[in-house]
């Protein structure tokens, strides 16, 4: 509690101080310093909360319909851990990343917004009063919005920021209603919440949509691929790895309030998750912009998380605590895992951006030779995000799979078998597509020959940008190998979630058994690899090893432009799903017998943005402009309105 308060004070003081630093050089040192110190303190508080059950804090500080009431239980602690881990490391990275903007931009303001964002996220997960939660939630949205439009003088950036702002605000509108229903007759304090049976379903729906907008569930995901690419990379890392998780937190928290889970919740989450995940990874595969690709893959991972939670709820509601434990632990663990590898990926993308100044994948290539550390960490993260053993991504997905497999037999002959089939198929599809997507991302970006002049003379990023990536890559491997300990450490979190129906240690134990074996296997893999490496070394010890050009099937003069491009790599799959991806081609060639100029351009638009939201907004605007004739400037008309109103009201009332 002291730690937490200290962290908050550090964030606040830092934010205020940095506002006055302005353009000065110090911002890039002071900002990260405050962020790291605060994050470390808060992280300590969070770990303490997970281990000892946390604290509750009520301050005599009133605001309209609310009281400053904070509480940190293991669940909040867990999310706090994720948030602090990411924002601390991202801050270290950002200090060097932003150095390019010194004197050009108000870095002080930017860093103070960064601190406010982190603080507000911590406040969101600890707020124990509906109104306070909403305030923190909105501050989080607004501050992240300003971070997104860091390069606000570019119209593109501003547009993206606006889309984000509107999306998150509309989501919040539903949350307002939800909290008002939850806290009927002014009991907005979470301790006083009691939900009437009739209110449960509406609240759940509102929560799914409202929080889903922040998390990026299917029709509401449109802001992610717009906002993340435009933000500075360390900010996109924080947003994608930590901030959208607050949406997941919200859903879980509300579900806890709503009492014992219902099968319908499980179904909703599973189906929403499956659609979100598959659509997300498909769109990711189709992108040409590295950061857009990563943003879409965040959508995918949110889908996986929600599949896990849904399976867990379904298991609990149908009376299979073990499956509940498996599903929920898988989903929860994936929150952490995704945070870890997605921040590596965004930071890596940032380093690439930083050194070749374009996010276009087609301009990259051969960077592994030029930026080895970035390349390697990016590669590890890609392996992890494809859920490949022995990395952490596999553990969470394994738990979900395992849950689904067990559920299959447990609920044999009932309708809910279908759920586990959906889970397995969608996870399998997502896995395959993710592999395609990230072999494209890692392979085209870092391997082969450079595809552009900038890529040819790319340079490795600075030490402070590399350290966070290395640390996180380490986390990937550690969580992957020592998963049983992680699961046992997180036991209180699961207990908090399934509080209505304590799953008991045995359930988690049974989940942990295979994990033990998996970590053994992981160790065996590493061992075998070493042995084989030794063997290979022995075989090649005194042989001639030649360096030549790539085998080009006898072609005379191969150039780097002859390499397989990213879009052609993805083409077979994007072709299969063209309808969903709204992908199109523009073929430009001049006519005549011998066309000199020829260009083909493929693109895939987000069908939800282009077929759902744009028409909606343009429609509203169109209708409004049609109605502007009401205010056409003639006094007579205005008086006419008054008279009409008067007469009709008189006739109505009397």
């Amino acid at each position, binding site marked *: 509690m002291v730690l937490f308060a200290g962290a908050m004070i550090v964030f606040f003081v830092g934010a205020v101080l940095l506002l006055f630093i302005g353009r000065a050089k110090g911002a890039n040192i002071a900002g990260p310093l405050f962020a790291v110190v605060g994050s470390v303190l808060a992280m300590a508080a969070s770990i303490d909360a997970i281990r000892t059950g946390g604290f509750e804090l009520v301050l005599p500080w009133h605001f309209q319909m609310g009281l400053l009431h904070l509480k940190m239980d293991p669940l909040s602690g867990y999310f706090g851990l994720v948030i602090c881990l990411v924002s601390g490391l991202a801050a270290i990275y950002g200090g060097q990343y932003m150095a390019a903007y010194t004197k050009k931009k108000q870095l002080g303001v930017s860093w103070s917004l960064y601190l406010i964002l982190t603080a507000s996220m911590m406040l969101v997960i600890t707020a124990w009063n509906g109104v306070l939660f909403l305030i923190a939630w909105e501050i989080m949205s607004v501050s992240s919005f300003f971070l997104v439009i860091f390069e606000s003088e570019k119209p593109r950036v501003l547009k993206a920021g606006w889309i984000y702002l509107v999306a998150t605000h509309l989501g919040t509108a539903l949350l307002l209603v939800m909290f008002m229903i939850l806290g009927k007759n002014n009991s907005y304090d979470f301790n006083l919440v009691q939900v009437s049976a009739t209110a449960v379903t509406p609240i759940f729906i509102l929560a799914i949509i409202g929080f889903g907008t922040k998390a990026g569930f299917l029709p509401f995901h449109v802001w992610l691929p717009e906002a993340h690419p435009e933000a500075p990379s360390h900010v996109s890392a924080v947003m994608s790895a930590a901030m959208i998780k607050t949406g997941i937190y919200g859903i879980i928290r509300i579900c806890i309030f709503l009492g014992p889970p219902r099968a319908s919740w499980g179904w909703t989450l599973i189906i929403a998750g499956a659609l979100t995940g598959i659509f997300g990874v498909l769109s990711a595969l189709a992108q040409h912009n590295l950061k857009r690709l990563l943003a879409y893959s965040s959508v995918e991972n949110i889908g996986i998380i929600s599949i896990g939670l849904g399976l867990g709820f379904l298991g609990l509601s149908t009376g299979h605590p073990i499956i509940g434990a498996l599903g929920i632990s898988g989903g929860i663990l994936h929150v952490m895992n995704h945070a870890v590898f997605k921040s590596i990926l965004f930071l890596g993308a940032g380093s690439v951006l930083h050194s070749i100044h374009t996010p276009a994948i087609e301009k990259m290539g051969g960077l592994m030779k030029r930026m080895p550390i970035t*390349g390697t960490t990016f*590669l590890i993260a*890609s*392996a992890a995000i*494809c*859920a*490949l*053993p022995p990395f952490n991504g596999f553990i969470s997905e*394994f738990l979900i*799979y395992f849950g689904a*497999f067990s559920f*299959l*037999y447990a609920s*044999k002959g009932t309708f809910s*078998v279908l759920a586990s*089939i959906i889970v*397995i198929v969608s*996870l*399998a*599809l997502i896995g*395959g*597509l993710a*592999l*395609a997507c990230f*072999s494209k991302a890692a*392979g085209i970006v870092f*391997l*082969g*020959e450079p595809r552009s002049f900038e890529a040819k003379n790319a340079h490795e990023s600075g030490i402070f940008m590399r350290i966070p990536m290395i640390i996180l890559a380490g986390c990937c491997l550690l969580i992957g190998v020592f998963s049983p300990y992680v699961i046992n450490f997180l036991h209180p979190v699961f207990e908090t979630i399934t509080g209505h129906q304590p799953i008991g240690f045995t359930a988690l134990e049974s989940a942990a*058994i*295979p994990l033990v*074996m*998996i970590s053994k*296997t992981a160790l065996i*893999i590493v061992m*075998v690899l070493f042995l*084989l*490496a030794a063997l*290979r070394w022995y075989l*090649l010890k005194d*042989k001639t*090893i*030649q*360096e*030549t*050009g*790539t*085998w*080009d*099937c006898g072609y005379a003069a191969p150039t*780097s432009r002859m*390499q*397989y491009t990213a879009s*052609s*790599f*993805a*083409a*077979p*799959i994007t072709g*299969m799903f063209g309808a969903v991806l709204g992908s199109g081609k523009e073929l430009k060639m001049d006519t005549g017998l011998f066309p000199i100029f020829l260009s083909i351009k493929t693109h895939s638009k987000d069908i939800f943005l282009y077929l759902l939201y744009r028409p909606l907004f343009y429609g509203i605007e169109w209708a409004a402009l049609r109605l502007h004739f009401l205010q056409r400037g003639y006094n007579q008309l205005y008086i006419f309105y008054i008279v009409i109103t008067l007469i009709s009201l008189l006739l109505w009332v009397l």
Partner: protein
Amino acid sequence: MKYIITTHLLFTLILCPVIPGIIQKVKAFFAGRKGKPVLQMYYDWGKLLRKGAVYSRTTTWIFKASPLISVATGIIGVMLVPLGKTPNLLSFPGDMILLVYLFGFARFATVLAALDTGSAFEGMGASREVQFSMLAEPAMLLGLCALSALSGETSMSTMFTSLQAGTRPVLAAAIFIVLLAENSRIPFDDPNTHLELTMIHEVMILDHSGPDLAFIEYGAALKFWIYASLTASLIVPPGFSGEWKSLGAGLIALILVVAAVGIVESVMARLKLTRVPQLLVGATILSLISLILIIR
């Protein structure tokens, strides 16, 4: 108990290169030729392992690492997968998920190695590889799903021991198709074509040479063995009790499966690449049908 495990393991590690030989023989028989010796692959190895290596200037450590990874995953896979009712080294609930994702790991490594060379052809092969595996994965997992639903077990060894009759043939068919796809056999891919444009797996390893190539071949052989033994375990009649007997039965079944592959390769032509996805979806549907038959 211990003995059989070790025997099975060693025996797999040593014998797996025979499989390609057997297929060659079967095909030769159908073509009315004499064909290569069954042990041909051992001779190839002998040559490859003695050779030095040639690397492209473009490549990085990934290119060198991927053969090792494919072998390593193969070895682990062998530890995971039983043959018939034979117990195996690593067996725990949910091990089949690990198996599938291990192959995913190997594929990831191979694809990256292919992209590492920066060659147009290898890139093309990689792209096809990911597409087809993306489609084969659900089929595989659904098949395993059906198995576990059928047996109520989530670990492969126990799964096969407590496996009743039922929809096994359908499952076997599904897994068999997956086998053909995953090991890039006809009708999905022609292992001994000579036109890079038409290849999938072979084109990805164009640039590997010497011991690396040997490792890759060995890894491929292991992978084939694993799939084959999965299929074999499905077609072993449930009657057999006793480990050694079941092992023998498994071996026979495995050889049958391999022969079946040879027959398929001799009687079928290679599919058009655009037709391949349909076949894989067909496999998925097969395993889905069997699953539904089981859990209804």
